[in-house]
C-alpha cells in the first residue's frame, strides 16, 4: 500500500520522472531525484521558508508538499532563475548588489518569494513587501539588506531589466531547458 508511485514533474523546464514513496517531501525530491540542491531545507515544518519554490507559478513551501502531489506540476527552483549562460535574474542581481544575504542559507527562499511577489505585485507597498517577506526567516538577521535588495529588484524590473526566459510564473518551464 505504501509502494512507490511513478510521477513526472517538470522542473525548470526539464521533465523529471521517478518512482517515489508517498511520504517523500517535494523538497527531498528536488534535492535527491532532480539533483537540484539549491532548494534549502531548514525547519521542515513550514516556518522558515528556505525551501520556497514556485509550483505552477505560485510560491509554496516544498517541505509542506508531498512529491506525489506535484505529479504533473511545473516547478521553478532557484536554479531556474538565471539564464543558462549564467546571466543572473534581476532579483538575484539585486540581492548580490545590495548584499541581501549573509551566510546565504535562506537566500534561495527569499529569491523565490521576491520573484513571485514582484511578478504579481510590481509596485508593492511597504506593508505588502514586508508581508510577503515575513514568511522567510534569516538566522543571520540581515533583514534590512534583504528588504533593500527586494526594492532594488523592483526598480530594476520596472526599468526593464531582462528576465531570463526560463524564469517567471507565466510560461515558465514550457519545455525549454
Amino acid at each position, binding site marked *: *500500500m*505504501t*509502494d512507490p*508511485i511513478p510521477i513526472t514533474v517538470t522542473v525548470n523546464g526539464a521533465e523529471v520522472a521517478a518512482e517515489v*514513496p*508517498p*511520504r517523500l*517531501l517535494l523538497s*527531498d525530491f528536488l534535492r535527491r531525484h532532480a539533483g537540484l540542491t539549491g532548494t534549502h531545507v531548514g525547519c*521542515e*515544518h*513550514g516556518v522558515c*521558508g528556505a525551501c*520556497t519554490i514556485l*509550483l505552477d507559478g*505560485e*510560491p*509554496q*513551501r516544498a*517541505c*509542506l*508538499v*508531498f512529491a*506525489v*502531489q506535484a*505529479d504533473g506540476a511545473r516547478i521553478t527552483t532557484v536554479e531556474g532563475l538565471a539564464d543558462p549562460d549564467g546571466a543572473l535574474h534581476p532579483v538575484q542581481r539585486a540581492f548580490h548588489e545590495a548584499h541581501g544575504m549573509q551566510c546565504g542559507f535562506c537566500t534561495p527562499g527569499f529569491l523565490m*518569494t521576491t520573484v*513571485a*511577489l514582484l511578478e504579481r505585485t510590481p509596485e508593492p507597498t511597504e506593508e505588502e513587501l*514586508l*508581508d*510577503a517577506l*515575513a*514568511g522567510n526567516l534569516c538566522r543571520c538577521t540581515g533583514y534590512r539588506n534583504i528588504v533593500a535588495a527586494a526594492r532594488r529588484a523592483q526598480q530594476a524590473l520596472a526599468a526593464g531589466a531582462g528576465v531570463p526566459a526560463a524564469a517567471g510564473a507565466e510560461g515558465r518551464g514550457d519545455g525549454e531547458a
Partner: protein
Amino acid sequence: MKPAPFAYHAPAQLPELLELLADDLSDVRVIAGGQSLVPMMNFRLAAPEVLVDLRRVPELRGLRWAPDGALTVGAAVTQAQLLRDRRACDAFPVLAEGIRHIGHPQIRSRGTVCGSLAHHDPHAELPALALALDARMTVASAQGVREVPADDFFVSYYEVALEPGELLTAVTFPAQPADAGWAFRELARRRGDFALVGAVAGMRAVGGAAAGTRLVLFGVGDRPRRIAAVEQLLDGAAPAERLGEVPALVVAAIDPVSDLHASAEYRREVAGELAVAALAEAWERARGRGEDQR
C-alpha cells in the same frame, strides 16, 4: 523530520474519493492544501495510514455564484485563489480582509478555505469568518449529501461535525446586504501567526442606528463565539453611545485559556478592546455605504 509511511490515492471522481473515505478499517485522512496536516505529519503528531488527495476531482474546484449572490467555494479552492477573485473580494470584503491574515503568501497559495474550516483551529480566521457570515457547509459521504450551518459545524478544539467517511465538499457564503459594513481585527505576536484573539464585526446603518449587528470573537475558547448580548445592545441604538458597555459583555461571554502565548486575563482584556475597535470600524463603513446607496 520525515513523516511516517502512508498509502496515497488521488482519485479523479468524487464517488471514488468518497468510497476511499468510507474505509473504516484504516486511519484515512483527506489532504487538500496540507498546510496544517503536513507539518503535523512531519512532526509525527499525525500518522494516517492512507491519504486521499482531492486535487484531481473537478467538482471540488472553483467558485460558483448563485443568482441571489451567494458564493460557493469548493474544497480545492486555495485562500490565494479567493483573494485573487475580484468579485468575491467585492462581495465579501471582510472575508478577504481576514484571509490576508492567514500565514504567509506561501501558505495561502496552497492552503484551502475548506481545509482551514475542517481543521478548526479555534485561533484561526476562517472559522470565525464563516460563523460571522452565516456560512453553510456542504458535507458529502458515500451515503449522501447534507448541509450544516456554521454554528453547528464547529464543535470544539480541532473538532467539527464531520462523521467518519464525510468530506466538507464546499462552503457557501450567503449574499450580504449591500449596505452592510464589516471589520476584522486580530492581535498576533508576529505577522502570519495564529491570532491570540480576533474579532469580526458587521452591521447596517439605518437612520443613525445600528441594525443586524454581528459580533464574533475567536481565540477566546474552544470555538469562535457569537456575542449575542453585544448584538442586542447595539441594534436600534447609535453605537457611539453604547460601545463603552461592550467590553464587560464580551468578558462575560467568553472563556479564554492561559497558554504559552498569553494569559486568559490578557486575552479577555484584548477581546474587549478588539470588539470595540471592530464594531466602531464596521459602523463607520456601514454609514459610508448607507450614504452611497442614497
